[in-house]
């Protein structure tokens, strides 16, 4: 187990470094003079000189790169060109909003996928199974930015249960979280169903039945635990998709999170904020997949002892 974790952590480092380098290089390949792009051509010479110093544009590329990594290590992300506030402050305000949304969606998806997968696998080809399969197919093809407006029309306009937009009222989390949860629940229910059916046909379950375990006991003690592994992997892979889905959902429901922050920053050419949000998004996705891998190792003894 320790060796596996160590190996996984060592792999994490070059990936992270690669990402940081990619964002750095993109920032330096801006066409034209970055100072012109950020401040406009008519900015005061003092402001231009200050920004030039802040961006280390007069230094060689490698020195710039070293300074950039040093700044990041100390948590210095620069200041927003639009509001003048430190990028870290902007991120600290927006990130909890997106995390709240993402975690709510993850929880909702798990709570929905588990019973759906179980019910569908109980009698394959039955009515429940068909209904679950119809849901998963629709859930996978419906883009979140169409599902969102549909939910808004249904549950905020025609039948006003929830607020239309914003994040200030208690019910405002519901619709964006459902929008994000539906595709995730669809994937997980589908995979859980398939893996349950695969496990139920295996020899060890036959043995368990032969020992005299009832169907329910055999299922709970043997099949379920093994069948939960593939959905767990998918959960880790999908965590990144939830993050990017949040960017779209935030636009639909005017949720003031990281997605809103990055889109506004791109449109106003606020490069320090763009860099900060992109790095935060990427780091969160990396950590999510790392967590999923570790969880997987914990749940599957074959990985743990390998």
């Amino acid at each position: 187990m320790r060796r596996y974790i160590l190996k996984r952590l060592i792999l994490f480092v070059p990936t992270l470094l690669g990402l940081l380098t990619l964002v750095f290089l993109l920032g330096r390949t801006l066409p034209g003079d970055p100072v012109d792009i950020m401040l406009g051509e008519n900015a005061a010479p003092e402001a231009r000189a200050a920004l030039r110093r802040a961006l280390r544009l007069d230094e060689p590329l490698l020195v710039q790169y070293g300074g950039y990594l040093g700044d990041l290590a100390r948590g210095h992300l620069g200041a927003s060109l639009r509001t003048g506030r430190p990028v870290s402050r902007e991120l600290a305000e927006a990130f909890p909003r997106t995390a709240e949304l993402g975690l709510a969606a993850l929880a909702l998806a798990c709570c929905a996928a588990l019973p759906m997968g179980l019910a569908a696998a109980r009698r394959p080809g039955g009515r429940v199974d068909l209904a679950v399969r119809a849901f998963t197919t629709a859930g996978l093809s419906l883009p979140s930015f169409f599902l969102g407006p549909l939910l808004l029309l249904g549950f905020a306009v025609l039948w006003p249960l929830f607020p239309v937009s914003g994040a200030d009222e208690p019910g405002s989390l519901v619709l964006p979280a459902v929008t994000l949860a539906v595709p995730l629940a669809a994937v997980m229910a589908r995979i859980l169903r398939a893996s349950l059916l695969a496990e139920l046909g295996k020899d060890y379950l036959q043995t368990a039945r032969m020992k005299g375990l009832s169907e329910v006991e055999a299922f709970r003690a043997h099949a379920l635990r093994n069948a939960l592994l593939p959905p767990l992997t998918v959960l880790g892979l999908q965590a990144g998709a939830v993050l990017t889905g949040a960017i779209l959902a935030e636009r639909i429901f005017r949720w003031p999170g990281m997605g809103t922050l990055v889109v506004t920053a791109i449109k106003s050419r606020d490069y320090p904020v763009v860099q900060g949000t992109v790095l935060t998004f990427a780091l969160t996705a990396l950590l999510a997949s790392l967590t999923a891998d570790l969880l997987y190792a914990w749940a599957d003894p074959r990985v743990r002892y390998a």
Partner: protein
Amino acid sequence: MPERGRARLACTFLILWTAGALLAPLLAPAPYATTDLSARLQGPTWRHLLGTDDLGRDVLSRALFGARVSLAVTTISLALALLLGTAVGLLSGYLAGTVDMITGRVVDILLALPGILLAITLLAYVGRGLAPLVLALSCTAWVGYARVARSLALSLREREFVLASRAAGAGTAHIVWRHLLPQALPVLAAQAAAGGAGVLLSEAGLSFLGLGVQPPRPSWGEMLATGCDVLLEAPHLALVPGALIFSAVWALNVLGEELPGDFAPERSTRVVAL
């Protein structure tokens, strides 16, 4: 068989939307950018079959011209991604060693970025418009094809026909072009159909965020964003582009599920036997 019916419906959708896109200048009842502020947010009428948007522009015309942008961007990005992914994947799988290690690391890093985040990042720095959009989408999509092509090349490089060709003095380019590519193409083509759904979805998502083609040029995603802003007054503005995106993505997904079987040699002989 319902399966065949599904595939047929999917083909019908794609043919219809492609025809609409190609014939947009003939079919569209009005220019897509002509505004008429006295006719804002109208529902369907005889003059405007799908109503008008927040600037009084004809929604049907915008949907037709939007199909051009959405489908053209998807096709071009997909083709570029396929080209780049196949070339990089086959070469790194065949050459193995250092080349393979370097491309492998790059691919891993790009795959670590979720979904359209890489595209958003590229657009943030490169700028917005048609060309940056294609660049961002193909840069995101090529990785998947590179992975598949690489694993195919790895499994083929030790096969007899490749060894024989190498023994006869053939160079890397010849082997990759004449021996590896024909083997890899069917697999990659099936991948591309399913990948098309992903690219179309990304394009719509980026346009939805306002990072795709710039106004007044329409695309389905951009129309949907406008529709979301006036959802209370004119829900049809969101429903029309939403249904178009949904149907196109669904159709490509269905074809992606059906195609791999049709491309596999066992299946095609069975089809002949039928």
